[in-house]
């Protein structure tokens, strides 16, 4: 990218931020992913306002009503109802809370711990590095699904537990990426320049290294959020996540399992929600990663 001539009076921060938005909109995948993320968050946050019905309210007379596009369906229960007459659409909207809470909470924990330990391992090296990496590999070596299921089965059903489990078991990925990036950046010239200026080590870590980690970790975070949504769904399908009274996409699928042939929408609707959420976040992550890669961004000089 050419430099603006110093004589051209642009007078303000070049549209770094505005260029980001424009690029996002230009990529169909990225835009779709962003849309999904926004929709997901809105649904979760605004659930009481958006959901047409109380997700827990049963209406046995309207049990197993089909979605509005089939005969017998109506707009009152747009996506139909389940065997207890609860509105599927409302339950999906409230279910987004669970999925989002796990995704955001889990990633927040994993990112924070992974960042801190990855920084220490990568920058200080030596004994710290060896110890942290070994511990990391230990956690990584356990089959993820198995680990999560066993822990969940032991500590019992609660959203908080699930977030904690996912958060901690996902640390290794963030740690690895952080450490890798730090190793790469540690020897870069601008870090050397910072040392030459006399910047103390702590400041180098926080003010120089961390800002450059935002990109790769941000990308990773979106992918991990997508994974967590899927894993949570799996867990709640098995009844190991939130208590059955709280609607979650996974336990909705589980509940509709027996009547799949007769009343398919009860399972399919939440299934679609999971797919869309997971796919959307993956697309967002893809876009993010491509946007950060200098090679795919612009034509080389």
């Amino acid at each position, binding site marked *: *990218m*050419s*430099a603006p*001539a*110093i*004589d051209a009076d642009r007078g303000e921060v070049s549209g770094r931020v505005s260029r980001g938005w424009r690029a996002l909109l230009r990529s169909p995948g990225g835009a779709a992913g962003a849309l999904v993320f926004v929709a997901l968050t809105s649904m979760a946050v605004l659930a009481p306002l958006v959901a047409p019905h109380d997700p827990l309210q049963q209406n046995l007379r309207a049990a197993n009503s089909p979605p509005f596009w089939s005969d017998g369906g109506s707009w009152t229960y747009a996506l139909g109802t389940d065997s207890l007459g609860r509105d599927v659409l409302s339950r999906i909207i409230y279910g987004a809370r669970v999925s989002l809470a796990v995704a955001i909470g889990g990633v927040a924990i994993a990112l924070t711990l992974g960042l801190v330990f990855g920084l220490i391992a990568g920058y200080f090296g030596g004994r710290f590095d060896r110890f942290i990496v070994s511990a990391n590999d230990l956690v990584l070596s356990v089959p993820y699904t198995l680990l999560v299921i066993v822990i969940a089965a032991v500590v019992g059903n609660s959203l908080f537990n699930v977030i904690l489990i996912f958060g901690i078991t996902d640390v290794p990925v963030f740690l690895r990426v952080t450490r890798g990036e730090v190793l790469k950046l540690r020897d870069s010239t601008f870090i050397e320049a910072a040392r030459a200026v006399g910047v103390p080590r702590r400041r180098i870590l926080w003010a120089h290294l961390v800002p450059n980690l935002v990109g790769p970790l941000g990308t990773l975070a979106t992918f991990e959020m997508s994974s967590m949504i899927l894993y949570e769904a799996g867990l709640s399908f098995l009844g190991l996540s939130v208590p059955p009274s709280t609607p979650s996409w996974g336990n909705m699928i589980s509940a509709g399992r027996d009547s799949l042939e007769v009343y398919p929408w009860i399972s399919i609707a939440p299934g679609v929600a999971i797919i869309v959420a997971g796919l959307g976040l993956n697309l967002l992550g893809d876009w993010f990663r491509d946007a950060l890669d200098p090679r795919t961004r*612009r*034509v080389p000089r």
Partner: protein
Amino acid sequence: MSAAGTDRLLEVRDLRVRFRTTEGAVHAVQGVDLELRRGETLALVGESGSGKSVSMLALLGLLPAKVAEVSMTTAALHGRAGIIDLRDPRQLRIHHVRGREIGYVAQDPSSSLNPTVTVGEQLAETVRHHLGLSRRVARSRAVELLERVGIADPAARADNYPHEMSGGMRQRVMIAIAISCTPSVLIADEPTTALDVTVQAQIVDLVRDLRDDLGLSVLWITHDLGVVADLADRVAVMYGGRIVETSPVFGAFDRPLHPYTIGLLESIPRLGRRRERLSSIAGLPPELGADLASCAFAPRCGHAFERCHAQLPAEVATGEDRTLACWFDVEAGAPRHG
């Protein structure tokens, strides 16, 4: 454009290259006319953003169509079997233009050599592909070539991987590959820029040697005026995607006519000629690829007047086998007529 009766080996007219990027079109090359005469060494001089490397890549068909729009009115190579139209990808393929007719040496040998294949094998592969030689013959030819480019102990070296060799040696390998099929033209893109000065001297000597030996016509792209003075018969100076001046080498150094050429020559320090302050060209190199309808150098030119900012100077012949694209006559100190 050229003196009558000279043997034109390579002729390019109105070469234009436009890159499609997310930030709009980048006009990297804006109407370049070039000719390479048989047996001569033409230096294509310019700084970053001048379009010199891109021109060559476009000429050789090495720019992917997805990314770059290349157009040329003429691109003719007088090959062994007649005139080849370089714009036609089929002809490029059939005549093995890249390799057999034109040898290309890129700037950075590290990225042009396959790190997982020995240099001997890469050489042998080239001659097998372009000349259809058998494995055995190709292998011995490879060793021969390594020796020809001055690599000591060529038989042993042939089994080295690129990373086991120094930068200078890798560049020699690149040259060996380029001349392996005895092309008539050698195009070298800043082959010595990344090398130490003593190694650079060796490479320049090598090319001079090969040139005389094999009767090569050489197109040498560089920004180093010292190398130009050493090697070139003729010089073409590029700025902002266009050629601003061409001249036989002595004329270019003794009597430069374009303000940019003059500025360049004055801004380089010369050993033994110490001045208090280096004179420098004001301002910055042009924005890459803006499509200007006026002289790209005008913002930095001390002689610029209204016409320079309004109209693109046409490239005209100024006698003595020289061309110039400038509205100002530096020798007369006044705008040019016509």
